[in-house]
Structure formats: structure tokens, C-alpha cells
């Protein structure tokens, strides 16, 4: 058990901050988030900001001019000041370049998580602080609660299908203390209902999909192909080492991938078990071979800093979620001396691609995030 049992959840969802900078992407969730904040704090105390993150082309992404206009018109309707902040340089440096560089060495980073880590909850945080805001708010489907001791907890959004606690799992106490997620207690349907009721122009806007800086017509392959030399490689049998033929663009192959890997002699599908980009080799194997008993995490974060001290050297139970809408699985975790976290699944799981984030939840309160790490 990570957190002492005596630590109860506070009955109140505290939202004390008054002057709030709400990040408005131009989507329906952040529009309604802004509306709820205006209702609560008054339009003088709420300011909207749209982040210009990606200077290149996009489908509509988070940052196109049309989305900025939607955000601004919603802000106008709500009577709040709206700014556009240009964080393209940091986005390129912290999100896009690592995404490209990661693929070049066979890793699969999650750009949305890195964007939250470095842009929304760091760069925007600093900007909000210097502009005198007490908190930032986003349209994420997650909830912040406080314990009686005044510690902050990150809880799954009320809509299980739209829960975004996974992409916020890297937040700590400092950030949660100044973060609000006003739509976290609503279902997506309720968010849309509210947007319709208020007549917000974004009410029926489709949810954004996938990575905002990758256009659907070019795809991941087109995006990375423009930025990386893609190399053909060889498929190798994981068990026997036998060469099974050519494979295109090893940089685009992900551990755990099934698509394009065909079937084995036993008639069962084959999965990628390992990608060795420098050697241009992709190992594939049976579903069993593609499973792993655990995963080692680096870049470990904790929702509550006290935890790392109280955890001690022993093994603790947790629940791991290995993708945005992945199935939570029971596990045990052990901190090693170097700040790495060894996760052992209760039952073997499909291998976690290096670079993917694993979010950890509390077994006693399975909706509560306790931390995160990146698969080594």
C-alpha cells in the first residue's frame, strides 16, 4: 500500500483559486471548462489562452488558426479576455524533436504526455504565474481532490470512456495545487449538453484525434519520413533467430505491434518483440513471446512526493495502465537505488514499447493516480 490507510479522501473537491488562466484549445471540453469557471468565479477572474504549439500544417490539431478563432469566439461569448501564447519553439524542442529522435532509435514516445509535462504544466504554468494567475485550468477529463491533510490527488474523470488521467499522470503536488479540471466530473455527453445549452459554437465539434502535429493524410509514416531517414530491415524469428524476410522502415515499427507481422507456422499471429534500429532488425514472435512479466520505468514521477519517502525499499502493490485507454492491470512496483521503478505485472502483459508512459494507480482507490514512468 502506497498511501497510509489513515489518509482519507477529503469530501470536498477544493477549488480555491480565484484568478484562473484556462487553456482553450478551441474544443468543446475546454470551452465548457471556461464556461464553468466563469460561472463560478466571474468573467473578470477568468482569462482564456490558446497555445500556439505547432507551426506546421495540421488537420485542425490543437493549434490551427480555425481553432484559435473558435477559442476566441467562445471567450468573447463568455466575456473573458483571450490571449494566444506562442510556444512553438518549446513545442518543437520538447515534444516534436524528441518524438522524431525517439523513433530514430526505436523508441515510441507519447507526445501528448510530453506536451502536458513540458508545455501545459510547465511553460504555461510559468507564464500563468508571472501574469499573476492563481491557477491554470484545462478541459481534461480528470479530477483533482484534496485529502484532509491538504494533499492533492489526481482522480480519473467521471466518464470512464473519456478519462484522461493517464496523460496527466506525471503531475505532482506543485502542479496539482494550481490546476483545475472543471469538466472532470462531467461525462462527455454532459459536457456537450452544457455546451449546447450555452449555445457555444464548439458544442458539436468532433473530439480531436491522435497527434495534433501529424496530418491524417500523411500519417506518422509521412511525418517521420520527412524528418528521418527510414531504413528497410530484416524480420527475425524471436525464438530461432531465423531470418524471415524484409521489413520496411524499421523506425516505424513498435514493440507489441501486430499489423504487418503475418502469421507463424502454427497459424497464429506474430507480434514484434524487439526493434533494433541500428542493426535494422525486428524480432517477431508468438503472442507469448510478445508478453513480458514486467517493465522498468525511468523518469518516474509521483503525485505525492511523500510517497517516495514512505515507500521505502520494499515492494508495493499498484495498478498499471500502459496506454491512454489501456486496461488497468495489477502489479507490484519496486524502487531501485537509481530512481528507476521495476514494475512486475500480476500476469504477463504485452510488452510495453520503450518510450511509452505507464501510469500507476492506487489499488485501494483504483481511480487515483499515484505516479508515472517511461518504459525503458
Amino acid at each position, binding site marked *: 500500500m502506497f498511501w497510509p490507510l489513515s489518509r482519507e*479522501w477529503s*469530501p*470536498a*473537491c*477544493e*477549488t*480555491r*483559486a*480565484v*484568478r484562473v488562466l484556462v487553456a482553450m484549445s478551441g474544443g468543446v471540453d475546454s470551452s465548457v471548462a471556461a*464556461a*464553468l469557471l*466563469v*460561472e*463560478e*468565479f466571474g468573467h473578470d477572474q477568468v482569462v482564456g489562452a*490558446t497555445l*500556439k504549439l505547432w507551426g506546421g500544417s495540421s488537420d485542425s490539431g490543437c*493549434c*490551427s*488558426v480555425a481553432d*484559435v478563432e473558435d477559442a*476566441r469566439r467562445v471567450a468573447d461569448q*463568455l466575456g473573458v479576455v483571450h*490571449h*494566444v*501564447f*506562442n510556444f*512553438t*519553439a518549446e513545442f518543437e524542442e520538447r515534444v516534436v524533436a524528441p518524438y522524431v529522435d525517439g523513433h530514430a532509435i526505436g523508441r515510441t514516445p507519447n507526445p501528448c504526455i510530453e506536451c502536458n509535462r513540458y508545455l501545459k504544466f510547465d511553460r504555461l504554468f510559468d*507564464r500563468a*504565474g*508571472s*501574469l*499573476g*494567475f*492563481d*491557477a491554470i485550468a484545462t478541459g481534461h477529463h480528470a*479530477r483533482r*481532490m484534496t485529502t484532509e491533510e491538504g494533499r492533492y490527488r489526481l*482522480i480519473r474523470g*467521471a466518464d470512464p470512456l473519456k478519462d484522461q488521467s493517464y496523460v496527466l499522470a506525471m503531475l505532482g503536488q*506543485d502542479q496539482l*495545487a*494550481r490546476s483545475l479540471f*472543471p469538466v472532470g*466530473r*462531467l461525462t462527455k455527453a*454532459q459536457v456537450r449538453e*452544457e455546451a449546447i*445549452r*450555452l449555445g457555444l459554437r464548439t458544442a458539436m465539434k468532433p473530439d480531436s484525434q491522435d497527434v495534433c502535429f501529424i496530418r491524417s493524410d500523411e500519417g506518422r509514416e509521412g511525418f517521420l519520413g520527412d524528418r528521418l531517414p527510414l531504413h528497410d530491415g530484416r524480420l527475425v524469428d524471436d525464438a530461432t533467430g531465423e531470418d524471415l524476410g524484409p521489413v520496411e522502415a524499421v523506425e516505424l515499427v513498435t514493440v507489441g505491434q501486430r499489423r504487418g507481422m503475418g502469421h507463424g507456422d502454427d497459424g497464429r499471429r506474430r507480434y514484434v518483440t524487439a526493434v533494433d534500429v541500428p542493426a535494422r532488425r525486428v524480432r517477431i514472435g508468438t503472442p507469448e513471446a510478445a508478453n513480458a512479466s514486467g517493465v522498468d520505468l525511468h523518469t518516474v514521477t509521483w503525485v505525492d512526493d511523500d510517497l517516495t519517502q514512505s515507500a521505502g525499499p520494499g515492494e508495493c502493490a499498484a495498478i498499471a495502465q500502459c496506454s491512454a485507454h489501456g486496461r488497468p492491470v495489477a502489479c507490484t512496483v519496486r524502487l531501485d537505488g537509481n530512481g528507476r521503478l521495476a514494475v512486475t505485472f500480476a500476469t504477463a502483459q504485452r510488452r510495453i514499447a520503450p518510450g511509452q508512459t505507464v501510469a500507476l494507480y492506487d489499488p485501494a*482507490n483504483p*481511480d*487515483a493516480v499515484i505516479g508515472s514512468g517511461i518504459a525503458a
Partner: protein
Amino acid sequence: MVGTGQLLQSMARRGERANMKFPISSGVRKVGRPDAQVQGHPGAGASSRIGQTGGMRAYLDHAATTPMRPEAVEAMLPYLSGTEMFGNPSGSHRESRRARLAVDDAREEIADLLGADLGEVVFTGSGTEADNLAITGALRVQRPSLDGRSGVIVCSAMEHHAVLNTCRAAVEQGGIELREVQTDRSGIVDLASFAEACTSEVRLVSVMAVNNEIGTVQPLDEVSRLVRAQAPGAVLHTDAIQAAAWLDMTPITAAVDLLALSAHKFGGPKGVGVLVVRNGIPIDAVIYGGGQERERRSGTHNVAGIVAMAAALSATVDERSDAAARVTALRDRLVDGLMASVEGAEETGDRSRKVPGNAHLRFAGIESEAMVVLLDEAGVAASAGAACSSGAVDASHVLLSMGLDSAAARSGVRFSLGTTSTDTEVDHVLAVVPGVVARLRN
């Protein structure tokens, strides 16, 4: 917005039922002023009130746009109301003749004030349109060389995007090479590099008269001499949009082949501009239609706007020397005061070579994008440089062209004064800026 709070609470109750492990008792709780309770941001609560300074506004963004001169408003009103002066200047009846007379009177007045001929004045829908017409229109006339060599454009790297992006679009369409000439540390186009770029195959040169961000007056005489000597086949365009409020335009007009102006930079209305096309300089139209403006710019005239532009330019020229002296003194007091009171403030460009209205400072360690937000809250309208289409602030290409690094190019704030600027406004800026800078550096 009525009822959102109720909804919030009812949602919270629903959440409670759905999630008994984490009961949410009563929705969002409102707890007085935030100062004492919210973690982080030391002093955020109190200092966030820096914006409350009694409603004083200091408008220091005249380079973006100016308030309209009363003369201009008065001149245009008859053409906006009533049933007599609304005519289309392109018709043949009395109503049309009346409108055409107004447009031609305005044309003659503007031509006189600029030192151009009546037929050289082409009315456009904006300064940007005038720049586009100049560049695209001049390039369309140019025939491809027989040897198949591409045409060459030379422009300064500090041009407004109306020029830069038009040139770059021409490059993308093929057959054109663009040479962008960098800026020296005093904010002037580097003449040695310009001379080098200005070779005989150059077809078009575009150098602005006054830079919009840092206010430096460019040496158009020397540019013109170099073009005539080294690239006699080239057409010389100048974006003079920031010049008209401050400088005698006649020598500028005399030095170039094409010259763009925008009415709202000198007390006229938005949505009307001028391209001066010197006699003998052929340009093709960019907008096709009824063939107005001697086939160079189709579209029904913005009669009221054109009339108002002439009135504004006339008033500007009448008052120019007085205004320049008065605003120079204000600007000097502003810049000297800020340099004295704010550590790490640096003036951009050589002040002796700037128009009176421009004050541009870089504040070390500050992001201008944040600074203009705080200045606005404190009652000061200033500019962080070029805003892109989304409204975001980009690192200034002007400052980058001077060889400043990207942090410096993001730290520049332009305070631009105009004929309506006052001592009180300058006092207000001087009072507010040190606190804003200190807060951002904290």
C-alpha cells in the same frame, strides 16, 4: 450563463452517486479571496491587481494603427450617409460624377502631397494590398529571360510580411530567386551586402522607407543610386507605410518606382491604401474586374475612405514638423526614462535615425509576449512585435535580421507614439513598466 452553477452542483451530486468512494459534496467551493489559500506564485494575489490603475489608458501602438483625425472623419461622413453622395464613381450619371469628382480630388491632393502625378496614384484596399500589387504586378510584367535564367528579387530581411511573404510566394511559384539583405546593428539595411546582392539580373528591389518595428529610416537615396547603377533593369519598390506620418514624402517618391501607403497609419480609416506607380513603370493587375484605376486595380472605389485618406494626409503634412518636434521630445523622455529606471533595458536601433514616434526597447530576461499582457492590464497598449495570423507573437524577424539571438528577438517591446500622444501617457508608462518588468523577472 444563468444556471451553470446549478448544473455544476447537480453534476457533482451525480458524480457522488457514481463514485461513492470519492464523494464530492457540493460541487465547487468558493472560498473568498485567493491570496492566503492558494499555493505557489508568491504574492500572486496581491500583485495580480497590478492591472488596477484607475482606468488610465496609454495608447502607445500608433505604428499598428492611429485614431482617426477629426478632419478625416468629417470628410468621409457625407459619403456614408444621405442619398446624394453615395454614387459609384464608375457610372455616367450625376450621382456617379459626384463620387468620381470626390475620388479625383482626393487623388490629386494625395499626388501633390507625395510629389507624384495624378495618374500615378492607384487606390487599393489596404497597404498590404498595395505591397502585393507592387511586387506581384511588377513581376507579372517581367518576361522570362531568353537564356532561361530566373528573375531575382532583392529585399531587406526586415521588410513587413506584406512584402516578405509576397516575395516568398513568388519564389514558391518558381523562376524567382530571392535575396534577403540583413540589417546592421543600428537597424539599417546593410548597404555593403545590398550592393553585393544588387546585380544586373535583379528585376525587383523592395526596401522599406521606415521599419515598422524599430522605426529606423532606411537610406532610400543610396538604395536607389545602387539600383540604378548596378541593376538598371530593376523596378524599385518601397513600403512607405510607416513613413507618411513623419517624413516628407516627396524625396522618397522621387527615389523609387513604386510606393505603398496605408491610410490608417496617419489618421485615416482602415481599409484603404495607395500604390504610387511612377509613369513608365508597367505593372499588371492582381485583381481583375471592371478595370478601375486604369486597369491596375479593379473594384468599386471606397469613396468615403479615399476622401478621408486625402484629408488625413493633408492634415498630417500641415502639422508634420510641429508634431515631429513634440513627439520626438515625448519619445526621448520615454526611452531615457525607461533606460534609467529599468536595469537591462536596451534601446533597439540608432535613435538618431528613427522616426519620432518609435520607441523600441529590449528587456533582458523578459518575454515580450507576457509583458504586453501585463502592460495591457496596467493600462498600456504596446506591441510585442509581429503578430501572426493566429494572434500569437513570433520572434521578431526584424531583430533576428540585426543579428540578435532568439531570446533577444522575443524580448522587444515597441511603444509607438502618435500625434495624439501626451505627457500623461508617457508618465503612466514610466510609472508602470518598472513594476511589470520586476514582476516578470521574479
